[in-house]
């Protein structure tokens, strides 16, 4: 089974803090994704990565950055956390291939609260 793990299930930070959310997958997937999930809005893509050291902005990249130094690990960084970044953050991975019909595998999520 594909396993996607996230470093924390719950996280509480203060406004202005730098926050790191870590995601690790064990299936050698090339593609990795970071989403945030808010009530009534569904999953919104923040950033994704095609491969190591490659990244692309998603729909809502403002206030976030990412790092992919190793294939299995994709980190989401909040440079200066703000209260409007309180949300559930979901990481996902997927086999590469623009024509491939493969689902994304999700981690359990990190519930981040910014006070």
């Amino acid at each position: 089974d594909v396993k996607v793990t996230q470093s924390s299930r719950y996280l509480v930070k203060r406004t202005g803090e730098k926050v790191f959310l870590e995601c690790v997958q064990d299936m050698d997937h090339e593609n990795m994704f970071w989403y945030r999930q808010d009530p009534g809005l569904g999953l919104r893509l923040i950033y994704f990565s095609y491969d190591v050291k490659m990244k692309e902005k998603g729909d809502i990249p403002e206030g976030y950055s990412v790092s992919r130094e190793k294939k299995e690990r994709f980190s989401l960084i909040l440079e200066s956390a703000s209260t409007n970044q309180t949300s559930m953050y979901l990481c996902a991975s997927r086999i590469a291939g623009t024509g491939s019909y493969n689902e994304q595998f999700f981690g359990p999520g990190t519930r981040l609260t910014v006070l």
Partner: protein
Amino acid sequence: GESVGLHLPTLSVQEGDNSIINCAYSNSASDYFIWYKQESGKGPQFIIDIRSNMDKRQGQRVTVLLNKTVKHLSLQIAATQPGDSAVYFCAEKITGNQFYFGTGTSLTVIP
């Protein structure tokens, strides 16, 4: 813009009945669709998928129907069980690697 949405935000069914969850999409070029189940406090889990060259696909107790004419997707769950209670949402592949997700329908199974 493109959108994937669900007609009903909540659905309650009696245990043993069949459930139908609907999804509308607007991008006629989308060629791949997925249904996910998300239980409380967990990440989304894959249920079933369908390519645009198919109208119907069946899994274990689940069936996905795709109507490209009206850009409509549905998930049917047979003999719904309490363990089926969750949020269900559809996803549409809009580019080679990106998906667009619906907001979800909360399914409650009444014992």
